[in-house]
């Protein structure tokens, strides 16, 4: 209806109508009723959907004085351009873009939101244009070049920066231009020219002005885009001097933004613009310095020193640093409440720290000695301060108030120094063996000739003494001295504990220490020389295999762990980091061999088995991990007798205590007594820990050990059926065993586990039959059991993807081979489980994200692995499964939608294979065809969904060719506009041209997917027109 009115002649009426509607929308609620408001909204909605609204929109922009109407006109243009892209002449697109750009530049007084919307429309036009292969890339390039040089946007920015809002928008535009790449550039030369021009303009702008708060993020985005998007060879091809100035400017800006970010933190600002800008620039440095091909060694050293120093300075207290100083030099300090949800600095600032650590390596010559001296200084001061406190306490035990300001400042300094040191000396790793960073290795090697090894070992081995009190302390390996500086911090902490000053210590610092030691030990302790081309002599002497140094360190670390677990059981995070350090010490065989030689280790094992204080004060997750460590240690190299003895100390007490409890005649009566429940809970937690310790070379022993328990656990399910937290823990044991072990189990063992799981599910099912969960306000953790069951099923299925087993190869030698008669399969267990879970899952429960994700993960797995079983499901179950998929595709998150699309593919393929055109699954997939067709062609959808949707679509088209043709016919028949009709019909013809008739052949499929992509770009939006 609006489309008709949009003819140029009707423009004034349209404007009048829109302005009236805007008035209604802007009116206070008391002035208009709901109906009027809805009507007004409707007018705008249909205006935005009107066909080719360009002329009328231009007219509106030029004549209307109502901001909201201008905003809507910009929106309409933006939407229509995308929608009708293939219908538009290229020249008219270009003139539209020029019109919009000039419009903004000529009207500095536009409302912010209107201007943003218009610039957004420009950005969309440029972006859409770069997708279009038919458009001449050269022309875009020329135009942008012209913008850059003649109408130089950075110059424009300088002119318009008086207006803060406008300046931000223009920076956004510049950032977009900074990331220009791809076919826009006709050749490399032009790309270099463009970049040089751009950087020159940028530097001119930045150097000539004092940067406003609002510009920081924009400027850093421009720089970060330039560095990430332009290839190194282009970056280095610009004139040398220009590149140097650029890097100098980057270093200067980074330091300056860093200082401003620190100020923001002091002032506790909500909007941390400088922090965001600082993050971006530090990240750019990481990208830049990681390249060692295009820049000569040492190219960035001076800049690295500059940025590193400024980071350290911002994080240290006065007088060395400026932490917590406001702009006028006043210190501010607040003791705020920090909740457990607050992220630790090492996680919150991990990206910053990774960059700073990397820069520290580049400038190791400067940074490593700097960190050492700062740390050593703080250790001495901390020691002195604690001693003064102790004397004060001895002199007057009653004097309660101690000002902790000095201590807190020291703790905070040490906190940051340890974090930076940790990130400098070692990398974050997941799974793989972390390597000593080459820069650190080279640095140590370079100086090893001047180093006295014995003094180095002495510095390392005497953490109780001041480093500078050791003769010849300056001729020691700097990397080892930095480590020993942290051991000195650790030693001061331990001594303070022994002097009963624990209450004065910082648990945060305690955490930092063990975090660092874990990170360090993973990388350096018992360094594997085979992994390196060359190795530093001080390193191999101090921490190599078969050295006194490594034996000493292992002993020292173990003592620290044991002390921490006793003293800090009340600090859960600290205990957790501590026990992680212990796991690091034993997870590799070489280190474990040293650990078990310590008497302390055996004491720890015995103490834990006794479940006596202080270890049983630890939180359950810490106890679990401790169990894991103790089990891992048991696989170190020992003679048979010792090994026997070890398991007698560690695992047998667990079994014995458990059997003693459950075999009591009155177990049924006493099972709810707190003491009994605690014993059971502790056992179940320990079992989870044991499962977590699984590795390929111990799975045989651990599986057999755990299987005995699993069977007993099923009995417990019965006893504790009224106690949900215990039931959950029992299921969790199964989840962990399946998670950690199923991939190693051969057929026979896997079947044992399947059987146990099936029985568990049966008991669970029996106990839950008809159970009502009456609490309507129930929270997510009330459904923990369901979540765990789904997790268990998913874990069992994972064997189909990851399977390291070699028909019980790992079990060979542990028991005589037994004939397998396959009675239970993964499919049986899982389908039984699904039978059980599906009826319990309601639409309400899918509102809980964890349940929803786990549920869809599970059903997708099932469809992928057992598509042939799906048609055999009982009718109800089949229906609810199909309904779940439909729901997932239509009204869940994009992740879930993606999973469902992935699930549809194997189902359709299954139908094609079975060739039964009357099966219910066949009918269901027909319905999915319509859904996916609508999703792709008629609805807006998330771009990340395009690939799975296209694949599902093709498979469905193959299966239901007639229905597909029908869908296309129906769609075409609704098009009244002959131009659109023709375009659409052509597009559909083109789409299937390369794959007629469509078959499930890979080559055909790829061809189809490629045409589909083009199809989507051309007509995707066209059909959204009303």
């Amino acid at each position, binding site marked *: 209806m609006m489309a008709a009115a949009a003819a140029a002649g009707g423009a004034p009426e349209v404007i009048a109508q829109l302005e009236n509607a805007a008035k209604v929308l802007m009116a206070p609620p008391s002035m208009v009723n709901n109906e009027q408001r809805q009507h007004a909204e409707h007018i705008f909605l249909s205006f935005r959907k009107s066909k080719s609204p360009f002329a009328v929109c231009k007219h509106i922009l030029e004549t209307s004085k109502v901001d909201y109407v201008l905003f809507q006109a910009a929106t309409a243009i933006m939407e229509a351009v995308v929608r009708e892209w293939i219908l538009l002449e290229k020249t008219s697109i270009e003139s539209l873009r020029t019109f919009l750009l000039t419009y903004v530049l000529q009207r500095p007084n536009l409302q912010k939101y209107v201007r943003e919307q218009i610039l957004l429309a420009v950005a969309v036009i440029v972006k859409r244009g770069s997708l279009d292969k038919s458009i001449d890339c050269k022309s875009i390039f020329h135009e942008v070049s012209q913008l850059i040089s003649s109408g130089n946007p950075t110059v424009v920015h300088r002119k318009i920066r008086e207006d803060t809002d406008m300046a931000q928008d223009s920076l956004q535009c510049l950032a977009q231009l900074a990331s220009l790449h791809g076919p826009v550039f006709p050749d490399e030369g032009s790309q270099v020219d463009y970049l040089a021009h751009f950087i020159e303009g940028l530097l001119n702008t930045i150097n000539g002005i004092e940067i406003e708060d609002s510009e920081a993020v924009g400027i850093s985005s421009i720089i970060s885009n330039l560095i990430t998007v332009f290839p190194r060879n282009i970056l280095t091809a610009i004139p040398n001097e220009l590149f140097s100035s650029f890097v100098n400017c980057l270093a200067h800006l980074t330091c300056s933004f860093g200082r401003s970010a620190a100020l923001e933190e002091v002032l506790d600002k909500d909007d941390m613009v400088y922090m965001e800008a600082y993050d971006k620039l530090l990240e750019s440095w990481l990208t830049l310095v990681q390249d060692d091909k295009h820049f000569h060694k040492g190219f960035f050293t001076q800049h690295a020193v500059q940025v590193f120093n400024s980071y350290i300075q911002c994080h240290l207290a006065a007088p060395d640093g400026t932490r917590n100083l406001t702009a006028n030099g006043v210190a501010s300090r607040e*003791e*705020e*409440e*920090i*909740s*457990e949800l607050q992220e630790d600095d090492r996680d919150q600032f991990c990206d910053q720290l990774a960059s700073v650590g990397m820069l520290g390596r580049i400038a190791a010559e400067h940074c490593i000695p700097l960190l050492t001296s700062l740390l050593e200084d703080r250790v001495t001061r901390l020691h002195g301060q604690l001693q003064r406190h102790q004397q004060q306490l001895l002199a007057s035990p009653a004097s309660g108030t101690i000002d902790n300001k000095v*201590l*807190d400042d020291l*703790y*905070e300094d040490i*906190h940051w120094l340890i974090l930076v040191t940790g990130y400098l000396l070692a990398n974050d790793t997941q799974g793989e063996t972390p390597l000593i960073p080459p820069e650190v290795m080279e640095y140590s090697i370079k100086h090893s000739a001047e180093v006295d090894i014995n003094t180095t070992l002495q510095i390392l081995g005497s953490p109780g003494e001041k480093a500078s009190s050791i003769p010849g302390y300056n001729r020691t390996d700097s990397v080892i001295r930095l480590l020993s500086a942290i051991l000195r911090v650790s030693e001061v902490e331990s001594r303070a504990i022994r002097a009963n000053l624990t*209450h004065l210590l*910082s*648990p*945060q*610092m305690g955490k930092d220490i063990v975090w660092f030691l874990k990170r360090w030990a993973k990388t350096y302790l018992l360094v594997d020389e085979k992994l390196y081309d060359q190795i530093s002599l001080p390193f191999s002497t101090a921490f190599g295999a078969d050295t006194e140094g490594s034996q000493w360190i292992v002993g020292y670390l173990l003592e620290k762990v044991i002390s921490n677990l006793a003293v800090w*059981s*009340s*600090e*859960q995070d600290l205990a957790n980091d501590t026990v992680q350090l212990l796991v690091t010490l034993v997870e590799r065989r070489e280190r474990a061999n040293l650990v078990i030689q310590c008497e302390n280790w055996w004491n720890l094992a015995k103490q834990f088995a006794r479940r006596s*204080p202080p270890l*049983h*004060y*630890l*939180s*359950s997750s810490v106890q679990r991990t401790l169990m894991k460590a103790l089990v891992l240690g048991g696989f170190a190299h020992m003679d048979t007798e010792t090994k026997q003895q070890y398991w007698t100390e560690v695992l047998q007490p667990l079994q014995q205590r458990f059997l003693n409890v*459950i*075999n*009591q*005649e009155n*177990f*049924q*009566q006493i099972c*709810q*007594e*707190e003491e009994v429940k605690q014993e059971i*809970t502790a056992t179940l937690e320990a079992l989870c820990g044991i499962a977590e310790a699984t590795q390929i070379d111990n799975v045989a022993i651990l599986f057999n050990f755990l299987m005995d328990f699993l*069977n*007993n656990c099923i*009995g417990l399910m*019965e*006893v504790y059926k*009224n106690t949900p*937290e215990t039931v959950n823990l029992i299921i969790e044991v199964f989840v962990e065993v399946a998670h950690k072990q199923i991939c190693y189990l051969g057929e026979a063992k896997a079947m044992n586990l399947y059987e146990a799981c099936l*029985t568990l599910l*049966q008991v669970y099912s*029996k*106990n*839950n*039959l*008809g*159970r*009502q*969960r*009456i*609490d309507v306000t129930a929270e997510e953790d009330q459904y923990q059991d369901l979540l765990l069951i789904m997790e268990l099923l998913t874990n069992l299925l994972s064997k189909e993807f990851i399977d390291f087993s070699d028909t019980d190869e790992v079990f060979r030698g542990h028991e005589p081979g037994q004939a397998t008669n396959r009675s239970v399969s993964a499919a049986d267990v899982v389908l039984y489980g699904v039978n059980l879970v599906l009826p319990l899952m309601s639409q309400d429960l899918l509102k809980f994200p964890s349940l929803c994700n786990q549920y869809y993960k599970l059903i997708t797995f099932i469809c992928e692995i057992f598509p042939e079983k799906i048609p055999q499901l009982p009718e109800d179950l089949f229906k609810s499964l199909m309904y779940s998929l439909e729901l997932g595709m239509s009204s869940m998150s994009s992740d879930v939608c993606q999973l469902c699309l992935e699930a549809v593919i194997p189902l359709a393929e299954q139908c094609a294979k079975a060739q039964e055109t009357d099966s219910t699954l066949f009918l269901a997939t027909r319905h999915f065809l319509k859904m996916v067709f609508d999703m792709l062609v008629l609805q807006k959808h998330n771009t990340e969904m395009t690939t799975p949707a296209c694949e599902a679509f093709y498979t469905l088209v193959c299966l239901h060719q007639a229905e597909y043709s029908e869908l296309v016919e129906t769609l075409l028949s609704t098009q009244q506009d002959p131009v659109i009709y023709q375009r659409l019909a052509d597009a559909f013809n083109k789409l299937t041209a390369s794959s007629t008739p469509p078959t499930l052949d890979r080559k055909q499929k790829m061809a189809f997917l490629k045409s589909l992509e083009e199809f989507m770009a051309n007509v995707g939006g066209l059909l959204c027109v009303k």
Partner: protein
Amino acid sequence: MADELDFGTGDAGASATFPMQCSALRKNGFVVLKGRPCKIVEMSTSKTGKHGHAKVRMVGIDIFTGKKYEDICPSTHNMDVPNIKRCDFQLIGIQDGYLSLLQDSGEVREDLRLPDGELGREIEQKYDCGEEILVLMGRYGAVMGHCGVVMGWLWGLWALWGGYGALWGGYGALWGGYGALWGGYGALWGGYGVLWGGYGAL
């Protein structure tokens, strides 16, 4: 009802409470808050300043009155944990607001009042409909007669519940021959359907 409670005298000499370090307490476990035995429903930690020591905040529900209590204390402190015992009884009658309950030993207790409120009404209704009901009772430290409180109910087919005690009474003995029992699992338990409600009470 709260006035009848006597936390001081435990039966068979068991103390009413025992101490436990705050950090070792668990959600769903029990703790004494403001002098009342509570089930912990919420636990979180915080600290004052980055270098401060952990404090634990606990929210508990009084197991007898359902009232909410909250406390915050340093995580190194010891808290009192109540000795809680839970018993299940078969409900065989209601008279003048008192329940007749069949104990495992075969004796009948008639000293427990029908609880007030929703729970009491539900029990009465189920009983009137002729449904078989099991009653859960919590006890905290003191002599049962004085502090026993009906905390919830279960119902199901009496015949099956009858078999229940017998089977589990022999639990220890059966355990050794577990595999054998399991073989007969289907036969023993087939068709066993206990319906659940009142689950949230404890």
